[in-house]
């Protein structure tokens, strides 16, 4: 089955600068439906800035982002929000709000009426179940632990029900069981629903075992995109500035310092 906006995400000649420093020069890159990309780079390499640019929160210095074949800048905000969802690195909660309400709010781009529809509630309940947080549904988001809050944000992302997902360090605050569950969930979305996932993560072994492709951000705005299977330890070492060697175990490759 081919999903509605099946053409994924693309960058053409994307140029990003921050504070006078070149983060990315001429990024020509495509993430097709069914692909799960992990963006890897050192601190300050521009991973988050790239993700914010893809999400339309940061304006590129040159070049353009295309979403589902249309330039991001020409898409109406609501249409954009029906095609792609973005998970920021962290959120500051100014007001109290129940977990269920917070997840229902992510249905905003789909809604027509004043109140939440049965369909909205169904999506919220499914997302609560998928992230294993149904027991937190009536809790105030400000009383949650960091990991719980992160899973609520992730559930909201799923409830938004978009074919493209952008995630900035989704696994950072999670325990190892929930990290594995999250990555399996994202990989399954790509595989079974033909969704496109782009995530930033420092959890190399966790993400590389589930992702299909990697985008390495190198120094001086250079970059390298490849399938995870073709990723060499040398390239990864150069990208992260620390020697890594590949070790095989139980049919999987692990990168160890």
């Amino acid at each position, binding site marked *: 089955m081919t999903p509605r906006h099946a053409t994924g995400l693309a960058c053409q000649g994307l140029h990003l600068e921050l504070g006078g420093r070149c983060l990315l020069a001429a990024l020509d890159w495509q993430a097709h439906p069914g692909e799960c990309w992990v963006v890897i780079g050192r601190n300050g390499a521009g991973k988050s800035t790239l993700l914010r640019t893809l999400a*339309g*929160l940061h304006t590129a210095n040159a070049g353009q982002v295309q979403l589902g074949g249309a330039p991001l800048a020409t898409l109406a905000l609501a249409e954009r*929000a029906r095609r792609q*969802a973005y998970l920021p690195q962290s959120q500051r909660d*100014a007001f109290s709000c129940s977990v269920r309400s917070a997840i229902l*709010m992510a249905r905003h*781009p789909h809604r027509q009426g004043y109140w939440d529809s049965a369909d909205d509630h169904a999506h919220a309940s499914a997302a609560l179940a998928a992230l294993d947080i149904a027991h937190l549904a009536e809790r105030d988001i400000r009383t949650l632990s960091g990991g719980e809050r992160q899973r609520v944000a992730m559930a909201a992302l799923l409830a938004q029900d978009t074919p493209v997902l952008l995630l900035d360090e989704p696994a950072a605050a999670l325990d190892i069981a929930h990290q594995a569950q999250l990555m399996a969930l994202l990989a399954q979305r790509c595989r079974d629903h033909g969704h496109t996932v782009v995530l930033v993560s420092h959890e190399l072994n966790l993400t590389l075992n589930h992702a299909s492709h990697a985008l390495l951000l190198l120094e001086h705005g250079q970059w390298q995109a490849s399938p995870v299977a073709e990723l060499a330890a040398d390239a990864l070492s150069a990208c992260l500035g620390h020697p890594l060697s590949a070790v095989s175990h139980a049919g999987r490759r692990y990168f160890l310092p």
Partner: protein
Amino acid sequence: MTLSRPRLPAAGSPAHALWLLGGLLLASLAALLLACRLGSVPLSSAELWAALGGWLHGQPDSLASTLLGLRLERALAAWLTGAALALAGVLMQALLRNPLADPYILGVSSGAAVGALLTLLLGGALWMVDLAALAGAALVSAVLLGLARQDLRGGPLGATLLLLTGVMVSAGCNALISLMLAIAPDSRLRPMVFWLIGDLSGSSWRGAGVAVLALALLLCVRQARACNVLALYGDAASTLGVPVARLRTLLFTAAAALTASAVATAGSIGFVGLIVPHACRFALGPDHRVLMPAAALSGGLLLVLADTAARTLLAPMQLPVGVITALIGVPAFLLQLRHVRRGQS
């Protein structure tokens, strides 16, 4: 023994919200009737209905009709002012993503005060005072929009810069207010101080105030869902389809217009714009779809009751209503905070 209670709609459901808003509307009407009955010459229910009939038919011939007309005008002015302030408070809190924001925080009311006090100092007529207050509020709003237009688009410092700009503009206006109070002759000082505390005597309701409140409520109902998203997500609300800069400009403009209309009617009445949104948040939750209409109704209700108390408690002396709102508001709010603390532990 078990008592079967009438089945009410579940909290948080649309039916529950409509029950609640209906209840607040009825309470507002009851408060308006109470305000019409109480005073130096109390009216009985029978007199009230007879006078209401006469007043509606444009025949204010009896004393009761005249009293009713005066009291109703003032009570309606109080309701409009309270509703406008409470709604402006909710809008400011959503705009700044700060639960401590109130309608006066960005200096719109200080601008109005400069205009009004200057006119009082120069001995202008009452209508000139109101007009000058409106002009002052409009001028400060325009200056703020000009200075902080970029902050409304967001960014890591957006809300902080907007808040600081507003606080600075407010501080400038407050210096002018202190200057005028310092140089005012004794005879003019008393009305100036009363204006600052907030006073509804001599106010009547106006078409402009009704129009501003109706327009703002309409806008709020249309934007309530987007306000929810903005309050939760901040700048990232745009990834959920909310035009962040446009919504913030709309919220600011609506809050400024509501504040200006309220302050021009009754001076800077404190506490309503901070306490009513908070009390509604605690009691009803953070959903703007319920919060905004509920805050408007509760604000109106509170100020009608407070103003009735202000003119009857020490009659024939009339207290400034701002004193009453603070005297009711502070203990009520502290009690509610205690309740919240208990709920947390």
